[in-house]
């Protein structure tokens, strides 16, 4: 990244209104993740405020996705992954044996790097989650959920006449918004997004960023991104990861204008990563 763009990041930051943080939604304490022998995440401790956007940035392979996947226990699906430490959501330990991981994933939705709609109709893509979680009592309930979710994801107008078409027939940007709608449909409290825009063009990206900003009102959002610009634009807090360590965490403001650690400074000014 050039000096030019770091200046424009500063203008982006300066243009953003002051943000008042609520209470913490998620708190992680000394989280370690091992893939077999590989120690991928080292003693990560961080709080994530509710109804705000928190961005995770850092060079490739530093453990951003790994940490994100700790928050909805997606790492459980990788046989060699082992997680230690404590992650609490609303002061409830999510790695507690008594906790139902299926329930957890309904509360903590996820949007992936590559849009991955189900090979089913647009309607079914959204309706499936509410159905399996028993959120709709009737067919008309379900219709309402589908419509509301697609509206919140800003996709309704584009697809309302073709709900029975395949979800995979949409454009990349539309597919990603469909995936966001699918996540919203089960009324999660937290939405995790792992580089949601990396497969999209600038216009579709801008659309998703707008959407993230709107969703912040009702959801706690954690986003992994490689774009410093994006982090500066959409997030209120930012955490910088490097080699499996959380180097620094603070308001997006501070991280981008006045970071404490020289590694953060180097990364945001584009000296590595």
């Amino acid at each position, binding site marked *: 990244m050039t000096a030019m763009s770091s200046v424009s990041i500063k203008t982006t930051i300066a243009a953003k209104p002051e943000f008042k943080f609520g209470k913490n939604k998620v708190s992680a304490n000394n989280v370690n993740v091992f893939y077999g022998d590989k120690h991928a995440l080292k003693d990560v401790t961080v709080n994530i405020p509710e109804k705000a956007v928190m961005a995770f940035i850092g060079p490739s392979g530093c453990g951003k996705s790994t940490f994100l996947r700790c928050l909805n226990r997606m790492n459980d699906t990788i046989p060699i992954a082992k997680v230690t430490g404590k992650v609490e959501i609303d002061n409830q330990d999510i790695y507690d044996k008594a906790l139902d991981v299926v329930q957890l994933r309904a509360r903590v939705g*996820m949007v992936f790097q590559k849009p991955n709609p189900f090979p089913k109709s647009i309607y079914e893509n959204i309706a*499936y989650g509410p159905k399996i979680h028993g959120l709709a009592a009737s067919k008309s309930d379900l219709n309402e959920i589908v419509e509301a979710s697609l509206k919140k994801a800003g996709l309704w107008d584009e697809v309302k006449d073709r709900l029975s078409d395949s979800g995979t027939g949409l454009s990349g940007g539309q597919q990603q918004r469909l995936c966001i709608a699918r996540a919203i449909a089960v009324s999660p409290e937290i939405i995790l997004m792992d580089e949601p825009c990396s497969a999209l063009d600038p216009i579709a990206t801008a659309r998703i960023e707008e959407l993230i900003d709107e969703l912040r009102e009702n959801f706690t959002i954690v986003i992994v991104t490689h774009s410093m610009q994006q982090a500066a634009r959409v997030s209120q807090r930012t955490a910088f990861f490097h080699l499996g360590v959380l180097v620094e965490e603070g308001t997006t403001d501070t991280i981008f204008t006045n970071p404490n650690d020289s590694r953060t400074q180097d990364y945001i000014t584009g000296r590595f990563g």
Partner: protein
Amino acid sequence: MAFEVVADSLGAQAKDSSKTVANIAVRRRRETIFKICGLLATSFGLITLALLLIDLAAAGFPRLSWDFFTNFPSRRASQAGILSAWVGSLLVILTTASIGVPLGVGAGIYLEEYGRRNWLTSIIEINITNLAGVPSIVFGLLALGLFVYGLGTGRSIFTAGLTLALLILPIIVVATREAIRAVPAALREAAYGIGCTKWQVTRDHVLPASLPGILTGVIIGISRALGETAPLITIGALTFIAFLPDSPISSEFPFVSFSWLFDGFTVLPIQAFNWISRPGSDFHANAAAAGIVLLAITLGLNAIAIYARYKLRKKLQW
């Protein structure tokens, strides 16, 4: 140093440009030779198959008539039919599929989705692969010892179904596993991410996506079972049957009957084998006709499979 090497190779390239042209000509010629070899190899198989079919058709077609399907075998070739054979084949295959498909697909799902990677699953895996290579006569011997004598299931349709189910089990298991493995990880992640249980992921996403592949395996297995002769002769299938198994539909409650499962039987390939081993060209024509029927059933099954696969793929909306 490095620079010199680069410069050297550049010079070499320039000098070699005439060589390259010659080289291309050689490569072209090689390609032509390979094309001809490939064509020969392909046509060898096709022509042999065509000749075989023509021969079969010429010998068997005149015998194909309504009577041929509705008559029992007879001492007189012109009156002999395949009624007991095709009914037997149908019932045996029905039994085979009812046992083999759920077992095979279930085992495939278990091994791929649920089975932890440990020594036990490794042993099971090796065994299944080996099972696929076991000669069918060995299955017959096993069935004779285990089912006919051990469990006392008799020389029946049920025993035949069990035996053939064992025979096609590895085919179905392997096909199921491969089909499941081909399901993209992103689909699984999407399903888990929304809060699916493992079973919901399997039932609602993985299975529908892998159904076309599983179906292919099932059909290959069933086609194989349809043509098997050796294991059925081993367990004591009859070669001359002038009666039909009990009807599966009965006039009294509960209107279905399963006593046919324990009746004696014959199947098309055995009937054909029986006829071909008799002297006299009349019976040989009968065998050819039975062969045509068997072939038609197999091709029909494959056609159904292709159609169903096409329909399923369309429904998937990738």
